[in-house]
């Protein structure tokens, strides 16, 4: 048997000249390395690229929003949860953006897509752009987003593109845990004190106009209704947020928050596009 303790896995990193750590400029490793990434015959590559880009952008931007809670969450346990959820979504974003670049066929990799596109080229829904006003909004949005994304990915597990189907099958397990974590908080706060109930109801009302853009299916609807009922919350009936000449997030039309997110997300990569360290 080989000696386990002579050097740990992390120690071997310092000896590794080809550093794969996750920071811009350290040399990314392709998250789909070794997988057959040929787009199967009969699959519309352009449509596949658009679909992967939209779902990847949702995950990338929402992950960024969740990461902003790190060092600011009310308790260490919740901070750990939010960081882990953000990490899962970032992993999904990396694979989906990589797949989008492959299907597109113009040689753009995940870095190119994440750091060097302008606001109008992003295809995420507007729900993920908002800055959370409080913990009620944070957990309500996480519930809505996870329940919706879970249903979307469940359907994608049988997609005709085997790579997208595999990414989806993996994500389904993660999203289930995210949804159930968020549901726990929505119920605890919704069915809590008068103050927590009022704040949770207000959070759901605030977010609801952005839900129209998601096209919630039957399953996501049912999951949300079950949580709202357990949380003694009233399902909002707010009208969908206005579009701009019929365009919304999926068309590249975003809220004011999006520019600030991209400024933070992209500034280092854009200022030092060839940086390595």
């Amino acid at each position: 048997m080989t000696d386990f303790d002579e050097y740990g896995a992390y120690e071997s990193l310092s000896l590794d000249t080809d550093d794969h750590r996750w920071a811009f400029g350290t040399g990314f490793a392709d998250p789909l390395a070794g997988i057959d990434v040929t787009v199967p015959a009969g699959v519309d590559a352009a449509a596949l690229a658009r679909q992967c880009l939209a779902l990847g952008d949702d995950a990338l931007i929402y992950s960024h929003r969740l990461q902003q809670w790190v060092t600011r969450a009310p308790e260490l346990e919740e901070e750990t949860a939010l960081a882990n959820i953000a990490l899962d979504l970032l992993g999904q974003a990396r694979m989906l953006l990589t797949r989008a670049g492959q299907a597109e066929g113009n040689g753009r990799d995940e870095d190119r897509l994440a750091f060097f596109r302008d606001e109008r080229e992003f295809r995420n829904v507007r729900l993920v752009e908002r800055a959370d006003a409080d913990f009620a909004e944070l957990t309500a949005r996480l519930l809505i987003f996870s329940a919706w994304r879970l249903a979307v990915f469940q359907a994608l597990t049988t997609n005709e593109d085997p790579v997208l189907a595999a990414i989806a099958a993996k994500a389904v397990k993660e999203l289930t845990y995210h949804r159930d974590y968020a549901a726990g908080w929505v119920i605890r706060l919704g069915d809590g004190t008068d103050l927590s109930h009022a704040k949770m109801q207000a959070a759901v009302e605030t977010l609801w106009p952005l839900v129209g853009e998601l096209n919630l299916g039957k399953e996501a609807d049912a999951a949300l209704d079950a949580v709202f009922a357990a949380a003694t919350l009233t399902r909002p009936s707010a009208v969908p947020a206005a579009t701009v000449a019929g365009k919304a997030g999926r068309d590249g039309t975003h809220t004011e928050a999006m520019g600030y997110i991209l400024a933070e997300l992209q500034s280092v990569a854009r200022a030092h596009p060839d940086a390595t360290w």
Partner: protein
Amino acid sequence: MVTAYEAAAAVPDPELPMVTIADLGILRDVRQDGDTVTVTITPTYSGCPAMREIAADLLRRLERAGYRHVDIATELSPPWTTDWITAEGRRKLAAAGIAPPGRARPAGPVPLTLTRPPVSCPHCGSAATREIAPFSATACKALYQCRECLEPFEYVKEF
């Protein structure tokens, strides 16, 4: 000479060094074609940052074992499940004070669940435990505490 499989299977998980990637079911395949070895690994969670550390460690250990040409391939399908953790892996986890997972939820529609599966304390065996946090130091674990011996412990979530 150590076989390529033996060298690959000895790689410890960076976050759970008491178990190997073979114990965890992360190591999917080791193939030797002439002097080229292809090692296939699968990520536990989509964002698992340990994948790169594992790949780096695989390259080093195989090189030390005399295998110069090593390719590391990723496999996504079927997705990793805690059901692939071997009996030996579960024993090692429990011996290190980490409760091993129960059986994973089967694929298919996922009903909303607000209760956690029962977890036994890896220290005293009591079934009277409570969840402290649904996530822990790594994505694959949750934090629990035993109501009998009061010890906090980590638990590898069914996945």
